[in-house]
Structure formats: structure tokens, C-alpha cells
């Protein structure tokens, strides 16, 4: 690394041109001979060029925005426009007056044709343009003013649209010298306007001045950099002494240009990027919309929190209830709103007077001359806090509640609200603008739904005035928007009121519909999980019974054979086979229990050879290894193979070794091998007899229609056919169901991956640090931590999973422990798999009351998070600690 570093520095010095002559020559010679160095040099040079490009590109992009920005200042004008751009950028303009001054203008216009401009004899400043009025024209003036002249922009006195050649005379006075030369003043009444420049535009058609069509205005884009606040538009009035007086100032708002709302992006920042990262296609709008909307369920899982539910849950005298009833409209717990944040009020009032008195009747305290009260009153715009009759105790309750971090929790912007406004219904409103799109990104950052509501409920206001209000709601970052002075998209008051009213209704409906859809879907899935479990159990039971039956038959066959070999009469096996297996070592000599031996041999499928000491008769029961290979196995979705011993009217699954199927064959039996395979739902089958003594087999299943499959299976015997077609059906179902569950798991994973983006202040976000206080005692589960851990560890023994791939993991649940110990509003903070999530949530919903947390000797409500673990049977979890989240 040292050497590389030195080399790079050397190259840098060379490229910087800071080498001395000799050094340079040496280096260049080295470059000639050392190809590695040359490569390094080339790369480094190119990278440095690349860096220049990056910064040049940034500058270009910024310049482009500035250029576009300049374009957003359009105005409508009559025949005559005069604009003054001052240091703080003022635009001045004059509308044509039908009587009075018109003659004067016309006079000037004709003078102009006589070879003079309106205000000066100096023609050199005049830009004369001839344009075709029936085409769009864009003109760039020497001072950078861009005129967008749409076709049909000019009308004659009768109001008819002019087509044909229109002459435009443009006079610009941007420098002090040219302003003076043009004889223009910068006086507005007695006030001097600081002037940067002025512009005069006049259009004539066949020698007559023409008007501008108010329907299709001409748009002038005046460079406004640095863009400044306080731009004003003035009407220029020619006074008797021939100078122009600038009157009637109006604040210049940038008019918002509505675009199709569907071309805008209202998603949370990074949503599409993350989607693409996760291998999804964010371009599929229907998919990404509905996925986004689905997150509404996180916020609406228990239905919206209403005053009623609050009252029911905490009683009318609780801190939160009192806060909602008395403070909520003007204060926020930790942010400033109309009034200051409540949090920390006690500290701020320390030694300055009685906070309680102030809260009850601030005006009396102000009148009494308390310094702090007076300064607060002044600081907060002399807003009067209404007097009330709260007791000291009640005020303390509110303050305690706030200081305990009991602010309403912000997760993020409600997707159902976003999707409600991101709709053609809101086209041609403030929301369907690039300007709002930018704000939408910032709104997501606030996680405060109130901000979004403010914009939607104020469609008849300028964006900038809503911006200012949002700043007062405690989001100082919106000041940057407010300063831009963005205007609005004109909308009839009635429409804006209607939209504002319907917004609440629509978004609630969207949330409700989402919640229902989600619930229906997951309920269905839960049903399917249940059915699947039943099927799985039934199939396992059937397999077990079938296997037992086959075993007994094979055992019987082996025993019969052994008895025949010994020449003794066979008794039917008199008892059930033992359920526990003992390891049996067969002695060379001695007395044998023939049926027991045969039993073990059959169970373990190995060879038995025994010579009866008295009769010298030899008994053999034998098994030989056998393997079966499916030709080109990978072409199938799945393959199963069965051995069908002809003598037993039964069958046996072959052990699937991945590559080969293997099983030991009973030497006394004749076997058919049945291979069932499936590809895309198409059944394949091969049935092949095992030649005596054969050790291996190749098998090549061929596609068969369903009826043919049944026929082939039936030829193997009724009992076998029934069992095997059950197997085939089960395997087919299993595959589909596996896909279903894999898809559900993928949904859950996608949800978890996107959650921090969609609801960025999310579920695991931390509260405000300054509200953290030391607890006397945390909340506790009444039966102790160990019991809770046991309760929250769900053993998967009885949980469904047909492929024995247990879904292990944890579901994180967040919940309040209220003052009285009630578990309130448990929510899933991290999902695992729907059925499990539900189960985890149920654990909390049915949980007994806890012992509440104690702070300063009083019970307080606190938010906790706990994991519910789903583990394989026999695994225990220790050290699952309680995490207090405030």
C-alpha cells in the first residue's frame, strides 16, 4: 500500500504540473517504459476528469433548476408591459387602461413606428422581433429574459385571435446606465425602489397595437437568481411630467403549474429504490401501489383510536384524556405548535412563578406582571390561553403524562391518506404540482399526518401559507418551502371544501377497505393453514397405517417361509409387534425364538441365517440391496417411488437418496417398482418388474392422462391403487400448498424490509430522549419473568408444517402497560408468518393484567416490546429480556 500510495502521489504531482523540469523528464521516461505506471497514470487522469464531470454535472443540474425556476414567474399583460427588477427583485407592470392613458400609449406606439421607442430615442436597446402569431415562439432576450409566446396569444380590439406576422418590440433596461438612458425612474410614490432593470414589450400587427389574449397569456421568464423573497409586481403609470411612477404593488407568487397527478411520486423517499433492490418491479404501479397501501393495516389494525376508546381505556381523569380535552388544540407534547411544547414546562418555570396558576389563568398572571408570563405571552404572538378550572392534581397529571413520553405515537404517513390524494380526483389542485411533490417527500420525513392533512384541507390557499402553518406545527424545516412563496392552483372554493371534506371520508374508507382486504386474505390463509394441517395429519396417519399393514404382511410372509423351512406348523402371530425396539445380538448357537428373530429381521431388513441345532435344518430370511435410478430426474418437479410386493397386496415407499432411490428387497418376494412423477401438473408414471436377483434398475416415467394413471394403478390391485392415488394427490396438493406458504413468507419478508421506509418513525423508533426518566420499577408480568418466557415461547410440535421445514423465529409485539396494568393496543412490530403473528398477538390480547411500572412512587403507562419465539420442540429460550421502550 505504501508503494502504491507514493506512486499515486507522484502521478498526481505530474498531473498537477507541479514537477520540476528534470523530475518531469524522468517521470515521462518512466512512463514510456513502465506499462503499469502508464496504466495508473491513464486511470488516474480519467478519474480526475470523471470527478470534474461529477461536479460539473451537479452544477449543470442546479443551473437547470434555477433556469426552470426563473420560468415559474409568469404574468399576463396588456399591450404594454414594463418591468423593473430591483436588487430585491421587483417586477413592475402596467395593465392597459381602456380609457385615459390608452391614447397616450397608442401615441407612443405610433411614435415607435416612426422610429423611436416608447421612452427613449435610442433604438439600439430595442429588440425587434417578427413572429408568426399562429405558432409557438420562444425568445431569449440579451438579458436572459425568456419570452414564451404561445400561438393565439394576440387578439385584436374585437377580441379575435390574430394570425400572421406580429412585430414585437422589446426594450430592456437592466443596468443602471440603460435605465437612466431610458429615462425611467425607480420611484414608487416617494419611495425609491432599488432597481436592477426594467423591460418594456409592445406588440403590433399591421401597424396597430394588439392586446394579449387573457385566456392564453404570454409568459415571461425573468432570471431570478438568487431567487429572493418579497418579489412584487408594480403597475407603471406614466405621470404628467413624463416619468413612470410605479404603483399598486402586489406580492409576486409563483403560480403553480398543475401536472397530471399520476406522473408525480408521492411514495416515501426510497420506496421504489428499495423495491427494486428487493427484486420487485417498482414500475408496476398497480403492484407497488397496493403493496404500499397494505401498510395502512399497521396503523389501522385496531381501528382508529377514538376519544371514546381512549376514555374507555383510561378513564376521564387520566393525563392523556385531560391533555386531549384541554391542551391538544394548541399544544403538542414535545413540539411547539400554537403554543410552546408542554414537555419541560416545569423546568422552564423553575423559580419563576407558579406554573399551575399560569395554566389555569394566564391572563391574570400576566396582568400581575410576572416577568416570565409576560415574556411568554409576547413570544407567542400574544395568543391568549383560555382560562380553565383544572386542579393542581390534574395539571400534574397532564405534565406527568407528557414527561413520561406519552405523546401520540407517530409511525409515519398513513398510506391510505397518501393513496387517497394521489388520484386523478386531485388533478388541477395544489397537490398535482411538482411543488407539492417536493413537499410530500418532506412530509414523509415528519411522520406527522397532521402536516399532510393541513395541505389537503387548504387547497384554496397558497402553498406557501400552508408551509408557514406547518412550520408553526413544529416542523422548522418547512420554512425553506415557505420562503419560496409558491402560490396555488386556482380552485373554486366550493371544490376545495368538497375535496377537503371527502378526503377524510375517502381515506377512512381506503383504510377500512385495506384492513378488510388484508384481514380477509390472512383469514383465508389461516383457514388454509388449518385445512393443510388436517390433511397433513390425515396423510401421516394413513401412511403410518399402511406401513404397519405392509410390515405385518411381510412379517407374516417371512415367518411362514421360516416355518416352512423348519418344517413346523406356523402359528399366526399372536400379539401386536412390540412398540419399542431393543438391540438384539443373535448368538451363534443356542435356542432361538424364531418368530421374534424374524420380526427383527423384517423390521431391520437384514439377512438371517439360522441352523436349527437339532434338525440341522437351515433357515434363511434374506434381503438384498437394490437401487433405482430415474432417467433424467431433474426434468420433474417431483418424483416418488414405491415398491409393490406382488404377494402382499401392499406397497412401500422407497428411500429417496437424492440421486438414487434405494431399498432392500425381500429375496422371497417379487416386486414391481412404481415411479410417480409430476411436471407442471402432468402426471408421469412407470411400472417395472424387478427381475429376480437384480440389484439396480433404470426407470423412465412417461406422461399419462389421469384416467390412464388410474387404470395402471388399478392393475396393481385395488388396495395398492387406492393408496398410491392418494399419495399422488397428496404430493400434488403439497406442492401447491408449499408455493402458497412460500409466497406468504415472501410477503412477510417484503413487508419487514419495506416497513422502515414506509413508516420511518416506525415501530421501533425511539421516543424523545429528554423524556426519559428513571423508573422506580418497571412493569412486570404478575407470575414472574420465567413464566412469561415460557408463555412467549411457542413450541412448534403441533404447528403445521407439511414439509417439516419449521418456520422458526420471533414476532415482536409492542404494547402499552397502562397505569392499572392493562395490556393496551398490542401491535405487531415485526412479523414472522401470518398464523404465528396472529397467535403472538392473541397471547397479548388474552394476557392477565401486569403490575404497572412505578415512577416517583406513582404508576405510569409505558410502552414495551417483547418477542414471542416460535421454536422447535425441546429448545428453550433463556434470557429473553424485557426492553422498555419509551
Amino acid at each position, binding site marked *: 500500500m505504501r508503494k502504491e500510495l507514493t506512486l499515486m502521489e507522484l502521478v498526481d504531482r505530474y498531473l498537477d504540473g507541479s514537477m520540476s523540469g528534470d523530475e518531469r523528464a524522468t517521470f515521462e521516461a518512466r512512463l514510456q517504459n513502465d506499462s503499469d505506471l502508464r496504466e495508473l497514470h491513464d486511470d488516474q487522469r480519467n*478519474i480526475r476528469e*470523471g*470527478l*470534474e464531470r461529477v461536479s*460539473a*454535472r451537479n*452544477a449543470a443540474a442546479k*443551473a*437547470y433548476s434555477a433556469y426552470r425556476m426563473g420560468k415559474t414567474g409568469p404574468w399576463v399583460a396588456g399591450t404594454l408591459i414594463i418591468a423593473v427588477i430591483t436588487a430585491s427583485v421587483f417586477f413592475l407592470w402596467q395593465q392597459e387602461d381602456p380609457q385615459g392613458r390608452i391614447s397616450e400609449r397608442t401615441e407612443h406606439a405610433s411614435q415607435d413606428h416612426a422610429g423611436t421607442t416608447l421612452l427613449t430615442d435610442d433604438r439600439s436597446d430595442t429588440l425587434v422581433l417578427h413572429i408568426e402569431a399562429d405558432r409557438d415562439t420562444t425568445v431569449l432576450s440579451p438579458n436572459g429574459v425568456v419570452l414564451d409566446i404561445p400561438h393565439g396569444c394576440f387578439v385584436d380590439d374585437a377580441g379575435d385571435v390574430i394570425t400572421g406576422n406580429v412585430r414585437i418590440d422589446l426594450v430592456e433596461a437592466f443596468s443602471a446606465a440603460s435605465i437612466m438612458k431610458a429615462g425611467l425612474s425607480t420611484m414608487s410614490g416617494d419611495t425609491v425602489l432599488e432597481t436592477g432593470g426594467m423591460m418594456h414589450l409592445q406588440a403590433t400587427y399591421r401597424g396597430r397595437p394588439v392586446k394579449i389574449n387573457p385566456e392564453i397569456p404570454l409568459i415571461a421568464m425573468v432570471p431570478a437568481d438568487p431567487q429572493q423573497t418579497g418579489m412584487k409586481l408594480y403597475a407603471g403609470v406614466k405621470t404628467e411630467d413624463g416619468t413612470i411612477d410605479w404603483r399598486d404593488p402586489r406580492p409576486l407568487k409563483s403560480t403553480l403549474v398543475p401536472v397530471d397527478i399520476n406522473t408525480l411520486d408521492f411514495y416515501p423517499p426510497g420506496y421504489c429504490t428499495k423495491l427494486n433492490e428487493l427484486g420487485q418491479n417498482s414500475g408496476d404501479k398497480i403492484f407497488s401501489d397496493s403493496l404500499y397501501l397494505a401498510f395502512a393495516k399497521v396503523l389501522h389494525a385496531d381501528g382508529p383510536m377514538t376519544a371514546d376508546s381512549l376514555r374507555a381505556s383510561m378513564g376521564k381523569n387520566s393525563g392523556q384524556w385531560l391533555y386531549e380535552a384541554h391542551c391538544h388544540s394548541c399544544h403538542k407534547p414535545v413540539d411547539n405548535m400554537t403554543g410552546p411544547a408542554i414537555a419541560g414546562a416545569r423546568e422552564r418555570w423553575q423559580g419563576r412563578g407558579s406554573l399551575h396558576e399560569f395554566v389555569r389563568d394566564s391572563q391574570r398572571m400576566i396582568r400581575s406582571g410576572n416577568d416570565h408570563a409576560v415574556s411568554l405571552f409576547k413570544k407567542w404572538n400574544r395568543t391568549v390561553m383560555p382560562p380553565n378550572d383544572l386542579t393542581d392534581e390534574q395539571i400534574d397529571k397532564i405534565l406527568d403524562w407528557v414527561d413520561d413520553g406519552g405523546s401520540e405515537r407517530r409511525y409515519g404517513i398513513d398510506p391510505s391518506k397518501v393513496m387517497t390524494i394521489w388520484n386523478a380526483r386531485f388533478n388541477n389542485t395544489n397537490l398535482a404540482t411538482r411543488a407539492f411533490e417536493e413537499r410530500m417527500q418532506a412530509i414523509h420525513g415528519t411522520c406527522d399526518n397532521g402536516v399532510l392533512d393541513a395541505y389537503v384541507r387548504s387547497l384554496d390557499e397558497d402553498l406557501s401559507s400552508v408551509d408557514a402553518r406547518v412550520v408553526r406545527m413544529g416542523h422548522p424545516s418547512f420554512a425553506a418551502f415557505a420562503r419560496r412563496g409558491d402560490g396555488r392552483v386556482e380552485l373554486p372554493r366550493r371544490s376545495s371544501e368538497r375535496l377537503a371534506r371527502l378526503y377524510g371520508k375517502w381515506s377512512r374508507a381506503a383504510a377500512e377497505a385495506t384492513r378488510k382486504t388484508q384481514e380477509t386474505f390472512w383469514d383465508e390463509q389461516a383457514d388454509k393453514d388449518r385445512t393443510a394441517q388436517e390433511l397433513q395429519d390425515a396423510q401421516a396417519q394413513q401412511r403410518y397405517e399402511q406401513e404397519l399393514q405392509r410390515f405385518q404382511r411381510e412379517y407374516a410372509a417371512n415367518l411362514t417361509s421360516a416355518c416352512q423351512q423348519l418344517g413346523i406348523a406356523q402359528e399366526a402371530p399372536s400379539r401386536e409387534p412390540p412398540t419399542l425396539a431393543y438391540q438384539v445380538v443373535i448368538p451363534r448357537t443356542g435356542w432361538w425364538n424364531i418368530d421374534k428373530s424374524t420380526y427383527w429381521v423384517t423390521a431391520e431388513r437384514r439377512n438371517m441365517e439360522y441352523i436349527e441345532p437339532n434338525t440341522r435344518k437351515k433357515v434363511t430370511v434374506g434381503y438384498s440391496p437394490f437401487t433405482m435410478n430415474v432417467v433424467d430426474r431433474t426434468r420433474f418437479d417431483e418424483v416418488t417411488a414405491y415398491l409393490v410386493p406382488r404377494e402382499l397386496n401392499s406397497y412401500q415407499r422407497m428411500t429417496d437418496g437424492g440421486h438414487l432411490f434405494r431399498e432392500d428387497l425381500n429375496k422371497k418376494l417379487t416386486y414391481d417398482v412404481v415411479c410417480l412423477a409430476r411436471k407442471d401438473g402432468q402426471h408421469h408414471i412407470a411400472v417395472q418388474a424387478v427381475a429376480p436377483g437384480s440389484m439396480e434398475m433404470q426407470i423412465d416415467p412417461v406422461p399419462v392422462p389421469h384416467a390412464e394413471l388410474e387404470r395402471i394403478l388399478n392393475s396393481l390391485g385395488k388396495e395398492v391403487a387406492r393408496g398410491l392415488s392418494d399419495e399422488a394427490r397428496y404430493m400434488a396438493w403439497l406442492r401447491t400448498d408449499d408455493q402458497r406458504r412460500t409466497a406468504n413468507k415472501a410477503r412477510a419478508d417484503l413487508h419487514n424490509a419495506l416497513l422502515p421506509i414506509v413508516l420511518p418513525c416506525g415501530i421501533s423508533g425511539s421516543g424523545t430522549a429528554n423524556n426519559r426518566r428513571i423508573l422506580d420499577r418497571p412493569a412486570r408480568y404478575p407470575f414472574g419473568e420465567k413464566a412469561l418466557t415460557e408463555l412467549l415461547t411457542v413450541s412448534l410440535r403441533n404447528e403445521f408444517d407439511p414439509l417439516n421445514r419449521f418456520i422458526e423465529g420471533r414476532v415482536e409485539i409492542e404494547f402499552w402497560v397502562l397505569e392499572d396494568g392493562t395490556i393496551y393496543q398490542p401491535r405487531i412490530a415485526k412479523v414472522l408468518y401470518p398464523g404465528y403473528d396472529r397467535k403472538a398477538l392473541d397471547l397479548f390480547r388474552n394476557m392477565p393484567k401486569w403490575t404497572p411500572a412505578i415512577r416517583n412512587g406513582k404508576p405510569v403507562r409505558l410502552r414495551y416490546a417483547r418477542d414471542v419465539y416460535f421454536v422447535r420442540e425441546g429448545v428453550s429460550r433463556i434470557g429473553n429480556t424485557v426492553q422498555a421502550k419509551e
Partner: protein
Amino acid sequence: MNDQRIIELIRQGKDHEAFKALYAHLPKVEHLVRENSGRPADAKDIFQDALIIFHRRVRVEGFVLSSTISTFLFAVCRNLWREELRRRNKTLTRWSAEEGGDATVDLTAMLAREQEFQHAEEALKSLGTKCLEVLTRFYVKNEPLTMIAKALGFAGEGAAKTRKYKCLEEARKRYRHLAVPTTQATRTH
């Protein structure tokens, strides 16, 4: 703003102002692109590329004003757009006649060289923002390492230097990854 003034601005490092003035030429390019099956956004992109190419010529190659900047930009844009259309399997159908024959610059060779720098640019953009910032401050803004360390919160000059080295090394690695396949292809031809 006249051409000479714009060139001066760029030489003084006042890119923003220069570019802003130059954007006045965008409508013409938009027209060209619109007439040749493109969208205004395409025009915006190629115009930005043209600005960057112009910027380099002024900065490094001592741009001599043989034509107006406007003509130069337009010629570059036309070439870039022709290239883009070729990529999209279309040809340029409508040329504005007065701009047709411009031979003041050997655009083909220039654009080929720009391709290399383009790769470097892409490699750099793929680095983290911190790396890009370190390198930009060092190479473009010529800030001393001590200042960079302070601004970006490195322990000291040494740390900044190491960081710069590592970033440059990583940029080079990625650049080679992007650029080398094309280089080899050229060699085998």
C-alpha cells in the same frame, strides 16, 4: 451574456452562473430532439452532457472560440442525439438546414474520449457520498487535506490522506471494471 464572458466565468470556477446562462440555448436543442422522435427530457439530458463537454474544453483544452458557443453546443447535442438514436435504432430525419454543416470541431474523436471520462464518472458515482466528497474536495476544489479532515470529521490529515488513497483506489478498481472491456474490444479490432 456574451460568449467570452461565459468562458471567463467557467475559468473563474463560476460554473453555476455560466451554465445558467447557457441553458438559454436549451429550447433550440429541445426543438431538435422533439423533431426527431425524442422527448424534452431527452433534450435535457443530452444538453447536460454537452455542457459538461464544453466545460472540459474550456477548462483543460483552452477553448478557442472558432464558432459561437451556441453552435458548438448544438453540434455536440446533435451528435449525441444521433448516437442515442442509433442506439434506439432510429435515424435523424430532420435537420435544421443552417446548422447542417458544422466542421469546426472534430466531434467524433472528442466524443470517443469523453466516453472514457464517462466511465470514470459512473465509477465515481457508484462510490459512497463520503468518498466522492473527499475526492471532489481534494481534486476539484483543491482543498488542503487538513481542511478536508476538519470538514468531514476525520481524525487528522493522515486519516484524510489514507481515506483519499483508499477512495481513489476503489474508484480506479471500479473504473477498470467499467472501462476495460471496451478497451480490450478496441484492441482486438
